[in-house]
């Protein structure tokens, strides 16, 4: 099973693992990105993820196809959540299964790194002082959004 999706509900990494588990696999690698409580020293209260949904899904599908092909992985699932997430919630989960650990782990690493480069998803951080900012990984001086 190779699939990728944007979702607006909570991501359940354990359910993703269960959905691809097979006795043919010797390794299942999970990467879960979660909402951290600080960013550049500021206390974060939540993150609002938004996307250019049709392109983001197309890019995600392209990335999982590349990852599966490159590492010989036959089960690979990616879910990225959109909407307002609370601290500790899972924003993205990547599960890759293979007979051996190295391809499974390398595949999850490849997928998250490519997501960060080219999937049109954005996040606005909300801080406990009531301010908010768009996150711009390309620029240390951020856009003040209000």
């Amino acid at each position, binding site marked *: 099973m190779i699939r990728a999706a944007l979702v607006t509900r909570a991501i359940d990494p354990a359910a993703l693992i269960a959905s691809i588990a097979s006795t043919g696999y010797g390794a299942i690698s999970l990467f879960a*990105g979660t909402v951290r409580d600080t960013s550049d020293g500021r206390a974060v209260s939540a993150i609002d*993820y*938004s*996307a*250019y949904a*049709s*392109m*983001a899904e*197309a890019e995600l599908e392209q990335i999982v196809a590349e990852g599966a092909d490159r590492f010989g992985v036959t089960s690979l699932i990616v879910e*990225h959540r959109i909407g307002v997430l609370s601290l500790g919630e899972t*924003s*993205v989960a990547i599960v890759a299964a293979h007979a051996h650990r190295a391809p499974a782990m390398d595949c999850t690493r490849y997928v*998250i790194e490519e*997501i*960060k*480069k*080219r*999937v*049109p*998803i*954005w*996040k*606005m951080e909300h801080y406990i002082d009531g301010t908010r900012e*768009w*996150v*711009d*990984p*390309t*620029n240390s001086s951020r*856009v003040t*959004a209000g």
Partner: protein
Amino acid sequence: MSTVTVQLFASYAESFGAPTLQLPLQSGSTVADLIDHLRLLPGASILPESPRVAVNRKFASADQPVGVGDEIALIPPVAGG
């Protein structure tokens, strides 16, 4: 003169004050021509030197031609994950 709709997202939509913009489109217009038009509008100071543009949901180079039926989007720095 024809026009084309450009979709804006996230910080760009806030800066330009709209989720879409109508831009003039001439025969032979390219992605670079659209960016030149965008730079004349209020809010354009947010644009980097080489903004990323998607044409029909794929990243496009500055010299790529654009036509009336194309889906054009300006892509702010991505921050997924």
